[in-house]
């Protein structure tokens, strides 16, 4: 399984990104880490280039909302990405917010898995569960 990951927008919080990299590798994924300060197009470009199965986006500084709204529009320009698993996590709003409102909103933006203030390992368990269910529905 190939995963493209990175931190979206002007966000430079790199610590989670380093841990995600390590954890994905430990779980046997092929990781393409774009690092911090990565724009949406760069994620999709990299997914096409590498033939990734998953795009895993982090956001920590509160910018996610702004980028989330543009996902559908930008992604629709890429023909081959219809089946890619879209995942986002970190701190998805400015301030604390609450997960019940945030999750449906982000699903609406086009994400399959939404992890607002969810621990990394729990999130990656959700990802593996999602992949399993998709393969054996």
């Amino acid at each position, binding site marked *: 399984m190939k995963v493209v990951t990175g931190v979206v927008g002007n966000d430079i919080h*790199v610590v989670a990104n380093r*841990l995600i990299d390590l954890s994905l590798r430990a779980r046997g994924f092929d990781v393409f880490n774009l*690092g911090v300060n990565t724009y949406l197009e760069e994620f999709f470009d990299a997914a096409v280039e590498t033939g990734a199965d998953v795009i895993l986006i982090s956001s920590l500084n509160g910018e996610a909302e702004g980028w989330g709204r543009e996902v559908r529009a930008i992604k629709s320009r890429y023909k081959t990405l219809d089946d890619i698993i879209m995942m986002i996590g970190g701190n998805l709003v*400015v301030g*604390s917010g609450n997960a019940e409102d945030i999750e449906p909103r982000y699903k609406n933006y086009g994400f399959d898995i939404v992890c607002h203030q969810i621990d990394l390992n729990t999130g990656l368990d959700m990802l593996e569960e999602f992949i399993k269910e998709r393969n054996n529905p």
Partner: protein
Amino acid sequence: MSLLQEEREIILSNEFVESFDFAEVTEFVKNASKDLFISHHFKNKPKGKMLVQPRGGFPTYKKQFELSEFFVKSNVDVLPLTIDSNTRLNDYATAQKMLRLSEENDVDMLNGYPLINHGYRTTRKMFTHFNKPVSLRHGTPDARLLIETAIASGIFEIEGGPITYLLPYSKNFPLDKAFLYWKYVERVCANYSGLNEPINRESFGPLTATLVPPAITIVVQLLEMLLSLEEGVKSFSVSFAQQGSMMQDAVTSEVLMKMARHYAEEIDCGDAAINLVYHQWMGAFPTNKDYAEQLINMSTVIAKLVGADKIITKTREEAAGIPTKEANAKTVANTQYTLGILNGLPKIVDAEEEEILTLEVQAIMEAVFNDPADTLWRKVFNCIKNGIIDVPFSPHIINHNNMITIRDAQKNIRIIDRGNVPIPDRCFKYERAQCDLTKDTTSIVNDIVHDIGIMQ
């Protein structure tokens, strides 16, 4: 001065900049109230008194004024002015648009105060009104225009530096440019320093706030200080943030201040004032807000133990999101109270740790000085490029990221892989000897993961 003047004209030729009347600004600085100068407070405060400064900034003049008023009532010693991120990227057009929107509606569309758009004539009214020292918190690689405007506004302390505002905050802003832009800033600060009390410059010691070993923190502090004093700055604050071990904080402060004085004298700048600033814990915070308060209180105790001249506060809301002004005021009140009841503080020493750390810092500094480049900034630039200086968890592409640190049983940050940093063998052996390295790699990685969130 004529080269500077030329550069000045270039940066001022910008449609968003008000026309500068430098003669008037010079007069203003010359006659400004001493109370506006933090350097004056550092010099005259009672021995042992620590200045308390919160964080915060709002887009509109009205809200920023209210915040400052609230802070003054809350007994802060130093007002913060945090700049919005568009301004930090010199994108004054967006800042202007967002400022309009914030003024028209009742929503904050910027995460700080767009100083350029407000201009110095307006902003000066606010700060001369409160007559408290103001500290400029930005994170701007090209802060030339910002600093001109700040000083003209009565803001006489400027935080940052070419290394500390770049390596933790940027992925690919060119480092050499940052050095040149900051050289301009230092010169401007130095020039204004002759008129009245000196303008204070402050370095941002916390860096990435994540497992940075004291040797790196100190070296970066010393180098930014030297780059500043070289240009004529007469008052400089070195800083660092709580590291996780009291003993290591005490030793860091000791070595940092001794070496700062030593190197300042080496370049014949022994007359400059050197102050120590301590940041309450800057790393990942506990989500439990009561615990966050415990952590903050502990930071205050340590700040006093290490003899800081100023403390910069955090709030119980750090893990959740941008703190309210009430949360900020509460922290300030609590910090002031704690400083008031901290009595009979003992002197802390650990001769062996101090020796090891001193040797490490000396070795890295020597490597920097031995770089063949002609000027100090070029030497520093080269040393970052070739990994002689390596900041853990920097997102910047120029940074090597080859130094690996973990915590020992006492939670001291220890270097277990030195990368290209010239840590002397004896010190490196000592650092590794403090850790349990018999574990397998997975366990060590797990330890690092755990150590990042050590205060959670």
